[in-house]
């Protein structure tokens, strides 16, 4: 069973430390949401977990080994990253992009084999992209492109998948589709899923576990019910917050509760 763990992690860029002494364990079969204010370090933490940023102190452990002792390919076989969806003009087809996920197994020079085509088909199937496989990435909508990047990560056949703000720029329908897929991957396929999310209500609705990051560290961790309390959120965001309940699922529903005429930031 693959485990991903942040151990005593201190992260930063140049002189400024962004996160200090952070401990976090990612569990298989669960969706972990990283929540917190802008600039709190959600993406920074994801980058460190994906071995894209070297920690100042501490380590990220994948199956008990420091990720910096593993090669890029070792990581890519066990951990898939879904980067933030930029609207770039990729002149590649959906299938070509998803097949790139197979480099983790097949290498960068050998031609793809039957096992690779099967994995690509499975990834396209899981993400509902079968009918779009021959389309160019640049022709797709934001939601479709996000699913392509998820399919690419799935083609890596990883045990853990990291998604950086997967709902950015997506409308209500695609937000639900992408997060629903993430949940299904965790609960049905047993993947460990970590995602950074801006939207607290989406985090509350779709995540099994939430890590609230603020003020350079982990402010609270646990189920959405445990983490999304008015007290925690007020401390994290510095504004008054009211917490209600989702009318259908009963998960926390977070609303700003500051005086509405005030405009100080």
């Amino acid at each position, binding site marked *: 069973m693959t485990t991903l763990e942040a151990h005593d992690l201190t992260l930063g860029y140049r002189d400024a430390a962004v996160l200090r002494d952070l401990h976090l364990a990612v569990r298989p079969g669960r969706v972990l949401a990283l929540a917190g204010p802008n600039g709190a370090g959600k993406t920074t933490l994801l980058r460190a977990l994906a071995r894209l940023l070297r920690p100042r102190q501490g380590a990220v452990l994948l199956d008990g080994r420091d990720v910096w002792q593993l090669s890029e390919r070792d990581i890519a076989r066990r951990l898939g990253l879904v*980067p933030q969806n930029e609207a*770039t003009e990729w*002149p*590649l087809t959906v299938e*070509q992009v998803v097949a790139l996920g197979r*480099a983790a197994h097949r290498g*960068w020079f050998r031609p793809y084999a039957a096992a690779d085509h099967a994995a690509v088909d499975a990834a396209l199937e899981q993400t509902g992209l079968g009918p779009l496989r021959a389309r160019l990435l640049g022709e797709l909508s934001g939601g479709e492109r996000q699913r392509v990047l998820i399919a690419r990560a799935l083609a890596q056949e990883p045990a853990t998948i990291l998604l950086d703000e997967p709902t950015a720029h997506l409308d209500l329908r695609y937000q639900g589709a992408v997060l629903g897929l993430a949940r299904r991957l965790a609960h049905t396929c047993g993947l460990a899923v970590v995602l950074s999310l801006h939207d607290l209500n989406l985090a509350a609705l779709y995540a099994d576990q939430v890590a609230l990051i603020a003020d350079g560290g982990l402010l609270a961790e646990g189920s959405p019910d445990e983490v999304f309390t008015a007290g925690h959120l007020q401390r994290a965001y510095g504004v008054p917050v009211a917490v209600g309940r989702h009318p259908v699922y009963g998960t926390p529903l977070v609303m700003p509760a500051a005086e509405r005429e005030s405009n100080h930031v």
Partner: protein
Amino acid sequence: MRRVRLLAGLAALLAAGLIVSLGVGAVPIPLGQVIAALWGRLTAAPPATAQDAIIVWDLRLPRALLAAALGAGLASAGAAYQAVFRNPLADPFVIGASGGAALGATLAIVTGLPLVMPAAFAGAVLAVIAVYLLAQSGGRPSAINLLLAGAALSTLLSSAVTLLMFLSDRNLHEVFAWLMGGLAGRSWPHLRTTAPLMLAGVAGLWALARPLDALTGGEESAQSLGLNLARARFAIVAAATLATAAAVAAGGIIGFVGLIVPHAGRRLVGGSHAGLIPISALAGGLLVLLADDLARTVVAPVELPVGMLMALIGAPFFLWLLKRG
């Protein structure tokens, strides 16, 4: 498959272009005599006319082959750099190869040393190495640092060339001709020394097609797929530089082919480099071959600079492509 058919079609077109090129020039030679001359040389039979044999075999054939190899090298290098830098304006010269080659060649010409070709090759390679090292601030060179260092060093090198030209009044015409690019007087020895390097560069870039595809999506994204960024970028720059430096050493600065051919190629076969690199190589070869044919016939016996002609034909064609969408 469409891609295979396109590649085969373009290869056939290039082969036909090569044969036709042997007949055109200051002394036109009919196709039948061209083939007879080639056949005569290959089978060691006595040639129909000795003059034809010399023109076809010793003058035009090596030059045509060199034009094709040079176009293939520049176009493939351009395609690779456009992927690595994720920049549609990237061409084989973005990280200093042309500036370095120009300085090397100019130095050799104004000092009268008969080493123009090796000096240009060395200048190109050294300039790229310098850019690579200069971009290296704080660990590995980022793509944007490479581009900026390339732009700065290219400017520096071209002012050095201007200064040399200003200070020297020897052989200025030769310097101009070199800077404008052309294949006048190139023959078998030039082909033998530079074409293998160009083709090795093209082959290397073709082998790196999958890393190039991954890099189109961004560096961190490629790294998360298991790519060792530093190693991949080094290999790509090395292969592209081999092709570019050899091309510039053989023909001077021939611009444009490395910029537009990859864009046209993407319209034909898409952005996957397994198809794009060979299609760019074939189309680039064909384009330079045709430009060189024109260069030596339009105002024969005087030769026009190939680089200038290329831009003259290429730019309107490219604009037409853009317009067509």
